């Protein structure tokens, strides 16, 4: 860094050469980036290696072999399918529920405010703890939900222990934990919408369903996209709920990316495969984020009267 001094030496003024100022100002951001980029590029390097901690002598670059092996590995395709299914089902249900609740609570009343705060409680619970709680509630022997299932005629409901209901069970837990997030985001969006279009529609006695489809929903779309973006990114990286409830089982029913990568690294010490799985997850997340952000920007331009 260059510095210059002017005037009376007893009253030296510390100045920075303008040439270096931009670099100095961007230094904190650069340091933060380094903190992210070094692990990222290390992971990229590992993903291109045959690297098992238990076979250090065999560590070498195999370049794309880990990725090529995925193409013929049925467990990889299963992981991809399970991860995408989980992400889209959970986010889809959460969006519908979150929107529905937000519409019900849209009017500012004491009761609605109280309910909206209460509904945030699941979001305050750590997902791993929520999973343990749900694991107890869905225990086929003594779980309260198993009892209710039996009272409505569903005998021998095994929840996360059965491949046919395991996905449903973890989706329910995810929906319980994260619907409040979408609800609060959409509620904020609904309450911030301009009143004029709705008042005009009311004066013209426009049917409510029409108002919803033609006014509310289009104006709410940026909020919906934001909520979807956050949730899809988070959901596709789900780990705690699934691992705490089933460890990815029964069989391969719930072996999502993060669970598979975790087991590959910590249990099998297969660093190369684990890193390659995470790289693919990163690519999917990046791709989906781009789609959402582009659409979000397009809508913003449209709202501002752009093309």
């Amino acid at each position, binding site marked *: 860094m260059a510095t210059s001094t002017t005037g009376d030496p007893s009253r030296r003024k510390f100045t920075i050469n303008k040439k270096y100022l931009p670099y100095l100002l961007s230094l904190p951001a650069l340091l933060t980036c380094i903190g992210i980029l070094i692990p990222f590029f290390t992971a990229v390097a590992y993903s291109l290696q045959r690297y098992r901690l*238990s076979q250090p002598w*065999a560590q070498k670059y195999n370049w794309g072999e880990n990725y090529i092996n995925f193409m013929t590995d049925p467990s990889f395709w299963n992981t991809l399918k399970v991860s995408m299914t989980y992400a889209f089902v959970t986010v889809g249900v959460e969006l519908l529920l979150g929107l529905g609740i937000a519409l019900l609570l849209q009017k500012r009343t004491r009761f609605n405010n109280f309910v909206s705060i209460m509904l945030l409680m699941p979001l305050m619970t750590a997902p791993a703890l929520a999973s343990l709680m749900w694991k107890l509630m869905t225990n086929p022997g003594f779980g309260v939900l198993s009892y209710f299932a039996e009272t409505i005629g569903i005998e*021998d409901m095994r929840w996360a222990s059965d*491949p046919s209901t395991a996905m449903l069970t973890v989706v329910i837990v995810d929906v319980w934990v994260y619907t409040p997030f979408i609800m609060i985001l959409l509620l904020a969006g609904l309450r911030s919408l301009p009143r004029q279009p709705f008042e005009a529609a009311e004066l013209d006695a426009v049917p409510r369903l029409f108002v919803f489809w033609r006014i509310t929903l289009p104006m709410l779309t940026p909020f919906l996209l934001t909520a979807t973006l956050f949730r899809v990114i988070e959901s596709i990286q789900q780990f705690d709920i699934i691992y705490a409830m*089933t*460890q990815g*089982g029964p069989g391969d029913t719930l072996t999502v990316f993060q669970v598979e990568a975790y*087991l590959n690294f910590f*249990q099998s*010490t297969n660093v190369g495969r684990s890193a390659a799985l995470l790289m693919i997850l990163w690519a999917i997340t990046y791709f989906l984020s781009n789609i959402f952000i582009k659409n979000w920007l397009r809508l913003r331009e449209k709202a501002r009267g752009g093309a």
Partner: protein
Amino acid sequence: MYEKEKKLAKSYIDGKVSRRSMLRGMASMGVTASTAGVLVNAAATQALAQNGFDWKKYSGTTVKLLLNQHPYADAMIANLDNFKELTGMDVEYDIFPEDVYFDKVTAALSSGSSEYDAFMTGAYMTWTYGPAGWIDDLNEYIGDDSKTNPDYNWEDMLEGVRKSCAWNGQPGGALGSDDAKQWCIPWGYEQNNLTYNSRMFNEAGLTVPTNIDELASTAAEAKAKLNGVYGIGVRGSRSWATIHPGFLSAYANFGQKDLNVSDDGMLSAAMNTDVSRNMHEKWVKMIQDSGAPDWSTHTWYQAGTDLGAGKSAMIFDADILGYFMNGGDNAEAGNLSFAPFAANPEAKAPTPNIWIWSLAMANASKQKDATWYFLQWASGPEHALFGATEMDFVNPVRKSVWADAGFRSRLDKNYPGYVEMHDISAPGAQIYFTAQPLFFDLTTEWAATLQKMVANEVPVDEGLDQLAQSVDRQLKEAGLG
């Protein structure tokens, strides 16, 4: 204070009085049995200090341990003051619950950190840690008279257990071979046998099963006759830990192996034989008919607590799980009994696959000789006897402790059939897996395949063929097959 009592304890250590006389003498001096145990242990430590070995060589040094939350760790901590007094060393430790313990160990060792000098491990884990260069071969310490006290008595360790902790690092290499490295020192171990609820068995008129067919029929009968109780508790989570206890003990009893080792050292899957198919079919049907409804999420914890809470009639799992469930606040405490179990009707004796909690030394440790002082004390005969008689340090790995009349009578009194079960199955107790670095990959996949079979997602024969195919592919990819 306590001088007379200490003298009596020393006389017992020196073999001048019997245990019975010592306890009677202590009682006459108003000393309870537990205090007597503490005095005996202190006398044993003093005797250790007088065997000519320089225990104070590393006085002032501090060793740091990474421990799993476990009764073995509790027993060691309870006796730690004696080690400090004996050596003048200090000991620090971090304790983690088992759910996260091995992740912490992997992270600590793979980073090359010298924070921990020694840690608790299982023998299976050393098949990863050893070849990776994270732990030391302890043979060089055990065999060095200048580093190991003359009363350590390595040969006192049960042979099957001792050998199960030694491997030459060659995939498929026999455990305990002449060129094997002693990656860890056995501390305490678990055999897999039957623990059954004798109250329920009496109530339902059941007899103790002696082979896999009887096990399945008894479990089914228990479920049918006992309201709200399932017949048999075995582990079922999607983890290697599902395969190693009862399942592999039964599998090995039929003479089956996990992998074949060819003459050139290459490995291949061995679980799709006709005998294996037959055994798998029986196992799967037993779980479907009489296992826990949420079997696929059951770890040792659920298997144990269900037995203790009276939700299952028996378990085929770690014997110490039954031991702990027979005490404390468990609903069925005092109702549990133990029996050796050989799944194969034609087998002469049980072949329990074993889990061994062991102690290993971190290769990155900067004070290995001092660390070995701790390891030899913690795995020595004095501490083993203290733990077994005064704490819940079962199962001890030393023959001398199993020969101790006090220990045997304590077990006999409170845990019916435990000693007999141990004595019958101990000769066949060892690790029956093939030692190789992909252990966790292959056993986790085996567990996932079992889950699919139990859920009727795949027939047993097809599932085993798929498993064998996948195992062979993974071995090939790793250059092992």
